[in-house]
């Protein structure tokens, strides 16, 4: 289902659980994820722990809204193998470039395959989960709900995937700094997230200056420099939205499934065609 993830890796991640879970549990899992039932989740050292508000179910003897505890763990990749994997990644500019752009490169698995590894979970053996609910089935709907949320998280933070497979961020930095290309990525990752840039007014406020004396009539009515004698023609732009395209589609703030760039392109064209210009 595309609603939780728009990236190929997020979807592949979801695919791993969808293969082994029945449609009913999956769909309820999705409504858990969407309906604010997941009260908290935390990822520490590759282990996901979460609390999910369950529903009353007299059949299972549940008469009061319960809070279930869920853990999901992924098969860690050994430190040595990680070293080898990162070294491989850092030998290809295409991989590093995409990671720099906050994307999982679509050919990354090829590099992992050389080491007999996979990065994304492919089947049940790649992760284990438990839930405190009475459902005998694993994954249950609660696990599925948390899983969907993790997938959504991965869209914006692909490096979480490394963490889930046992490579902490500190370790990732260390490994990256071993090669020149890796250093490029490492520097970018260390950029701090900026605190919100608070403004005191919506638009730049117009400031004032006291009316000074001693200026001439010409200073007041005319400008310091004469206006240019000719005027540039309007640019003829064949492709819309180029300035934002470098940042790729589906920026993190875009919470919809359709292409952000396509919408912006249409909008830019509309402004040019219909705006009061």
């Amino acid at each position, binding site marked *: 289902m595309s609603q939780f993830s728009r990236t190929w890796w997020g979807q592949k991640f979801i695919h791993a659980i969808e293969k082994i879970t029945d449609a009913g549990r999956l769909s309820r899992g999705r409504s858990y994820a969407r309906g604010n039932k*997941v009260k*908290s989740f*935390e990822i*520490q050292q590759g282990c996901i722990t979460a609390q999910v508000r369950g529903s009353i179910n007299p059949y299972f003897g549940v008469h009061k809204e319960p809070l279930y505890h869920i853990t999901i763990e992924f098969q860690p990749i050994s430190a040595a193998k990680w070293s080898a994997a990162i070294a491989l990644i850092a030998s290809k*500019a*295409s991989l590093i*470039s995409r990671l*720099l*752009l906050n994307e999982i490169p679509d*050919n990354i698995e090829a590099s992992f395959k050389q080491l007999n590894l996979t990065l994304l979970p492919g089947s049940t053996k790649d992760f284990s989960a438990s839930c405190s609910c009475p459902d005998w089935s694993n994954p249950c709907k609660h696990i599925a709900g948390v899983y969907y949320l993790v997938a959504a998280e991965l869209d914006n*933070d692909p490096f*979480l995937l490394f963490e889930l497979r046992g490579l902490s961020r500190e370790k990732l930095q260390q490994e990256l700094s071993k090669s020149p290309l890796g250093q490029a990525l490492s520097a*970018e990752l260390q950029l701090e997230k*900026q*605190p*919100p*840039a*608070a403004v*005191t*007014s*919506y638009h*730049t*406020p*117009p*400031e004032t*200056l*006291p*009316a000074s*004396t001693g*200026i001439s*009539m010409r200073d*007041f*009515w*005319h*400008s310091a420099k004469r206006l*240019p*004698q000719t005027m540039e023609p*309007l640019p003829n*732009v*064949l492709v819309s939205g*180029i*300035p*934002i*395209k*470098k*940042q790729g589609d589906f*920026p993190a*703030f875009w919470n*919809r499934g*359709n292409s952000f760039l*396509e*919408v912006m392109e249409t*909008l*830019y064209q*509309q*402004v040019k065609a*219909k*705006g*009061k*210009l």
Partner: protein
Amino acid sequence: MHILHGTWIPQSGDAFIRSGMFYLWVETSEPARSRHPKQHHPRQLPIEDLAALLSNDLGIKPPDYRTLEDLIEPRYFVLPTIDNEPLPSLELSRYLEQELPESFEFQCWQVDCYPTLTSIKTGSYGTEQVNGIVPLLNDLHFIALHNLTDVQLGADLLFWFHFTQALKRIVFKDQYIPALKYQKLAPPKSTNSKENSKRKKTSTSSSGSSADKFQVYPGWEFIGEEYKNTLQQYVDYMPLVCAAGFAEPPKTLEFYDRPSLLRHFSECWLTDIVTHTPITQAIKKSMDGSILDGCLHPSPWPQSAGLEQYQQWQAWRDRIIRTQTDQPFHLYFHLQDPPKPSDAWQLQFQVAPKHDPSLRVSLDDYWRMRPQQKEQVKQQLGEAFEQNLLMNLGYAARMYPSLWRGLDTDQPIGITMQLDAAFTFLKESAWVLENAGYKVIVPAWWTPKGRQRAKVRLKARGKSLGGNDKSKSYFSFENLVEYQYELAIGNNNVTEQEWNQLVNAKTPLVQFRGQWMELDQDKMQQMLEFWKTQQQENPELSLLDFMKLTAGSEDDALEVECDRQDALADMLAKLSNKQQFQPVDDPATFQGTLREYQKRGVSWLQYLEELGLNGCLADDMGLGKTVQVIARLVQERELAQQQHNNNLPPTLLIAPTSVVGNWFHEIHKFAPHITATVHHGSDRAKDSKPFKQACLKHDIIITSFALARKDAKLFNSIQWHRIVLDEAQNIKNPKAALTKSILKLSAPHRLALTGTPIENRLLDLWSIFNFLNPGYLGTQTQFRRSFELPIQKNNDRRQSTTLRKLVEPFILRRVKTDQSIIKDLPDKVEQKLFCNLTKEQASLYEAVVKDVEEKLQAVEGIQRKGLILSTLTKLKQVCNHPRQFLQDDSDFTPERSHKLTRLTEMVEEAMDKGESLLVFTQFTELGAALEKYLRQTCHYNTYYLHGGTSRKKRETMITEFQDPETDPSVFVLSLKAGGVGITLTKANHVFHFDRWWNPSVEGQATDRAFRIGQKKNVFVHKFVAIGTLEERIDQMIEDKKKLAGSIVGSDESWLTELDNDAFRQLISLNKTAIME
């Protein structure tokens, strides 16, 4: 006169969202007499008048059911004020008889202002209001440019016009993004809200700020270098008055700070425009629930909600900004074609520091450098070069995904691609990469200059120019052009078979005869069919139609070409590069020496006329159009005589009254054997028969525009050899009776003379061409539709190129600054302007002469000297202007003095070209009158320096005049005060309105403009009243050898030594020189 002002006025107060409004107001030269409250601006157009002007003259409509009056509201301007009266703007002051004081104070004035709101249909529900300032200013500028009304734009609105057009260009490049603004609210009360952190993010991202109370406001913002630079650049173009408007009377006298006001306007305007762009339901749906939805309908998000989305947006925005701002290097993509068509194409990655593109190095070389060398290169390319390079390659690959292939290594150098991919790259991706800020280098054959195109060539040759007729160097007067069509690629003819092969080629990019090129097979198919149908015929064109075809726009598949050996090719080449004209020799009977470029000009005149084409000689003022025409008259008579034709019909020359005398004088001077007559005055021939006889006896008939209309019947009755229009812009109005009657005149040759740059005044241009080559530029309506509107309103470069190509062959225009002209010109070019006296001047002159003749008998000694000197002064005054002599307050109008008329015309021409000038006179009272006239009637920027000018004022005036940022100006100087010691090198024209007896005094004055630092040639124009003592003084100065030693003193006292007869002769009036 009304001056239209306007500016952006922010809302008052300090609300978080503080917008503003663009207001227009009008300053008038005729304020209503009604009493107005004290603080109201007395020269403004009040509500009703303002509304009437806006709707009737400027076509402004209210945005809704309200009337314009309803919308007009008072705003407050801090304006220069003196004695409780606001001073007029500089634009208006040129229409007022009010001296501007040197110092003033500021005061706040209430002004009725109109907000530039307009309605826009946003969806099916109805309309909304939006600031319509950008299209409105475009319209107003167009109206004002064409003097369609009695309204002029103030410098403030002109600034806003330029600035808003610059913003519009940025909007057209999509350099703006959805924006979120984060406002911190007052700290929350201590209770922890339940909403808080319902799901915790990963350990790294939790931040303390989530506890702060805040609110997020959606909107739009500009991004990119161009916006930044535009703001910076335009602050210098912004008059202070633009920052002087307030929504409420300011508590202290102040102005807005210009940079922040510009920013405020730009931001408010962008949000206004984008949020009021009508969008379809489909677009609306495609962004439903996203932040875009909010940005288009800005209202604040719920309090303290959306921090995460805000930060995600912030990170996105920061990355855009970061990659747009200066990285010290450029990334290049260099496409190289393969030597063998079947091989792969290379797209190489290269980098170069921005500050020195010549240090470009390919990454292939870079990776292979020795460490030390690499370090050196890195220093040029900036810190973290490799990291930035990778980021940039990654971004580029996003725009053009094929690049990913080249990045499967740790040392990327480029990619290879097949033919199809290379074609797509050239067609599309190259352009996208270029617009995204990368540099793209494509093979030379792809550039517009090197591109080979498939085309149908129209091969033409002059009909009568067979090999057998060598006696004629030009083709026949019927000027028919024979032509045939040929298929061609680039410069090569192509057979039908080859063409077919290319049409059937599988790719649009082919190598043809060793050269890569792009083919549009569909178009080629069409061309082939066109060519086949045309094969059968053997058609002909008129020369004029042929010229029109050759000017066709570049994209036309039809290309006109001639045999290189053919006279047509020669003709086109000559007409497009007039330097190629072989200068004629000075005609044997011409009494003077032509300069090199003048000889070339005569040669051009001759050539065009022999082709049966009519042209416009548009040399700059002072380059000598008159002598070139006279030389042509002489030359054609000499040539005719060689062919034993002594009977050329007369030429009719139509000129402004003020130069009629000068023409006559110059013809007499340079070609005394050319018989000229002036058709003017009350005793002119009025019946057809005597007129015809008079015409037959003369080579040239000179008349004025006024009579060309009045005596149209007479002129129509003659078959002229040639019509010459001097100052041809006089027929710029196609509807005027004058223009119509001139168009009716019949002559095989027509020639227009003008010194104003007509190519910039399209209607003038059309009208003049309609006289020269009727139909060539289409009807007036066609011309307006295809050239005037697109060029002047929409700044359409393509149409303006086409038009230039159309008219260029017919216009010979040399400007003073042409290198080729400069070398032919002395640094100082002197010419005399001979003007007639008006009837009024003549009668005054005669009265003075008569009076003095009587008195002269009776006086002796010192009294006689006094009488002579005062007479000289009086006569000179008469020659200048009757008012100066009468010393009454009568009108100082050009109608009363041809000198003044001519000065007015020439000043206008110089001002049009942005040139400054000096006017010298020996009379203080005349200087004052001239300055006032030039400022108040002609509305130029003027300065006046005379004996009474304070030292300080003199210095300020000189500095201001010399300042390159000052508008072109007229500096009037009295000969005595301005004759020495100052530098006015900004002027390149010097006028001597009256003559001084000693040429060295005039020379000294002239040298004000001609001093060290003068880079231009200086043109000196000396006025001489024909038939008066001025002409005789001029003659004496010319013949000063004969008078050796006589003219020594710097004054006129030596003239008192003349005996009575000689003096009488000196001052007597030659009555033929009078002209009404």
